């Protein structure tokens, strides 16, 4: 695969755009499932930037950070979805505006 020269700039541009879209989703949605999905998109965008930087210098470090991001995402989603089940049970809705009191 010689002649492979995707500019690093463009990969980082894609990553930046994905991160911005994820943040937009995080701000405009009130459903907790969509909020968790937006977090996934943002983590994925950061992972893309890490892997691209690792590929730029030909070092494995970027992919190792990708592995760490992967485990963070997995742990976050497991706990987050457990919370989704609790919120649905207690408030009978997934809208976070209805669940804004500490002792609902």
């Amino acid at each position, binding site marked *: 695969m010689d*002649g*492979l*020269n*995707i*500019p*690093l*700039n463009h*990969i*980082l541009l*894609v990553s*930046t755009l*994905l*991160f*911005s*879209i*994820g943040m*937009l*989703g995080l*701000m*405009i*949605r*009130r*459903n907790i*499932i*969509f909020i968790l*999905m937006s977090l*996934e*998109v943002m983590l*994925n965008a950061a*992972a*893309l930037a890490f892997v*691209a930087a690792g*590929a*730029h*210098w*030909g*070092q*494995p*470090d*970027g*992919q*190792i950070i*990708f*592995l760490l991001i*992967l*485990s*963070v*995402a*997995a*742990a976050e*989603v*497991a*706990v987050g*979805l*457990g*919370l*989704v*089940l609790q919120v649905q*049970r207690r408030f009978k809705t*997934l809208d976070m505006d209805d669940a804004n009191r500490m002792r609902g």
Partner: protein
Amino acid sequence: MLEITLFYIAATIALVATVLAMTRANAIHALIYLIVSLLAVAVIFFLIGAPFAAALEIVIYAGAIMVLFVFVIMMLNLGEEGDARERGLLQPKIWAGPALLSLLLFAELLYMISTIEGPVSSQQVTAKEVGLALFGPYVLAVEIAAMLLLAGLVGSYHLGRRYLEREE
């Protein structure tokens, strides 16, 4: 040349699928678009010489994590009225302000990456190199990840267990 074309196609698919995922009213539809976006990112990983990361992206992200979302959405049984409510919340007057803020952040990030130059390296970083580095200098990070996953396991078991008990 072919790789570059493939990269732009995959990047376009990833961005379009993510935008569609963020704007759907139905959670399952959004999830399917999100899986498409993750698969497109996996293609990008493969093209920039990270086949191990590409495989993990498909197996863990698009496979395991998204299946968790599907399980929970199916358990909750959301229905049509939830969709209608979501659709009502997606009006321009609601998303205009956040969109402006995201655009500002994007402009800042764009300014910061605009000075970076050079292509990504053409040689692949194989799974063997990643493994050697992972259990060499980064072994502490592996331990931390293990503790984090254990904490996630205990936390989700606790939350899910109480959910199941009080159902009766």
